[in-house]
């Protein structure tokens, strides 16, 4: 670990300062927590009745149903996004100039504007254009189209990162170009890009909450409905936020662990300072915000 930027062993004065700093920070942090709690208490928001509604079987069932809807949309969206992403990545690498151009245009276009705009268009615009689907599919469509564009770039980077010799060797042993891609190149590329793909899954899971805007009954929308009904909106919303974090945190951890393992395998250690690999981690960071 970069056990503090100041890597060397601290002297007596340094240790005293760190101790003093820790105590001061501890006091300030607990002070802030106390102020926050008092705010809750002063407005009666710590009232056990408001919180105990969260344990009501009806409410729990309703919210879990919302979580299930969230996971369903995320799962279907991911399947669609992987399909779209594969097609677009291969299209972009195609030797036909027109195909490459179209796939490139798709990727650049759909990554450049907000996903919410796409979902609104899908859920509010398409029905007026004569497309009749359940609300769920409009959301999934938006998620798949957008994340497909993002995944296409991840897949493409994975394919390009492979040594050319892999494809050449595959062709040399008599495989056709399609077989070489399917049997040799893609499996390795996907494996190499696995951390980024899992990371994108977390992004997609978070993005399903945009379904809130089109009244799809995912977790957040259901939290709002039951909170408004029982008069404990803040409590239910905080519980929903906790549920999102409980689902996403382990997935993020898996993505990070995969990444650490990959770096061990393909050279470069995570802890090395000044390594260009750190910049790769940074690129993933930017992807996760979108």
């Amino acid at each position, binding site marked *: 670990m*970069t056990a*503090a*930027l*100041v*890597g*060397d062993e*601290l002297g007596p004065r*340094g240790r005293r300062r*760190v101790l003093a700093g*820790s105590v001061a*920070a501890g006091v300030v*942090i607990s002070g802030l927590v106390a102020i926050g709690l008092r*705010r*809750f208490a*002063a*407005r009666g*928001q710590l009232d056990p009745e408001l919180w105990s509604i969260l344990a009501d079987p009806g409410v729990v069932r309703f919210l879990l149903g919302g979580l299930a809807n969230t996971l369903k949309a995320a799962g279907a969206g991911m399947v669609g996004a992987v399909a779209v992403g594969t097609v677009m990545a291969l299209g972009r690498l195609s030797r036909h100039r027109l195909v490459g151009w179209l796939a490139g245009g798709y990727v650049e*276009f759909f990554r*450049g*504007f*907000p996903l*919410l*705009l796409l979902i*609104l*268009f899908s859920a*509010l*615009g398409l029905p*007026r*254009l004569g497309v009749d689907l359940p609300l769920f599919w409009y959301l999934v469509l938006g998620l798949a189209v957008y994340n497909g564009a993002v995944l296409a770039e991840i897949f493409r980077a994975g394919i390009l990162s492979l040594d050319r010799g892999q494809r050449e060797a595959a062709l040399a042993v008599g495989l056709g170009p399609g077989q070489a891609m399917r049997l040799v190149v893609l499996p390795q590329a996907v494996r190499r890009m696995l951390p980024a793909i899992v990371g994108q899954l977390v992004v997609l*899971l*978070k*993005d399903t*909450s*945009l379904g*809130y*805007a089109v009244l799809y009954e995912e977790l*957040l929308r259901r939290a709002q409905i039951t909170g408004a009904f029982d008069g404990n*909106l*803040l409590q239910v*919303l*905080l519980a929903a*936020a906790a549920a*999102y*974090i409980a689902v*996403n*945190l382990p997935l*993020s951890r898996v993505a990070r662990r995969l990444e650490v393992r990959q770096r061990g395998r393909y050279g470069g250690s995570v802890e090395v*300072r*000044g*390594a*260009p690999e*750190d*910049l790769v981690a*940074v*690129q993933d*960071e*930017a992807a*996760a*915000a*979108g």
Partner: protein
Amino acid sequence: MDVVLDNLDRIAGGLGVTVTLTLASWVGAFAIGVVVASFRVGPIPPLRVLGASYVEVVRNCPLTVLFVVFFFGFPSIGITQPPFTSAVIVLSVYTGAFVAETVRAGVNTVARGQVEAARSLGLGFTQVLGLVVLPQALRSVVGPLGSLFSALIRNSSVAYTIGLVELTLTANQIALETAQFVPVFTGVALAYLALTLPTGLALGVIERRVAIRR
């Protein structure tokens, strides 16, 4: 395309709100990010834990949830802000976590000898960080920070959920009034692209300018 031209002033207004919102939130996010990154690389354990928890919680919570909790939940504890201020706060807090991780990764790219040299000159932690490490760290992550800025432009659309009349909500209103979804949404999507694509190009230029040659 007539719908777009007839409503050009409204679209321009929405675009203005989106741009202001993005810029204001970026200032907040950058400040939060640098402070939290400093906490995380610093020697004081409680601050390290605080920084790490902030990043973990915010990164794993959807932006929509943060918007809804702040705008619809927090009035219960007496925190009520108008939509624009709320949006700036929420977007700053959200993007700040990603900026913090980016800056921290940038700090890790600064060569070990830089810190050792600064230490042996007698600089204290804040001086090492502020005068030697951060300037180099920030220069090495200009590209990733730019991607975050571009993501912020797109994320500002989530302010739609709290009724802030920015570009996306404007588009939706016009589309619902005129029932012309395709031209309106295409026009507004192109307006977003007109913001995000030049940002990417400008960043490439800045990145090459400030790149550290090693």
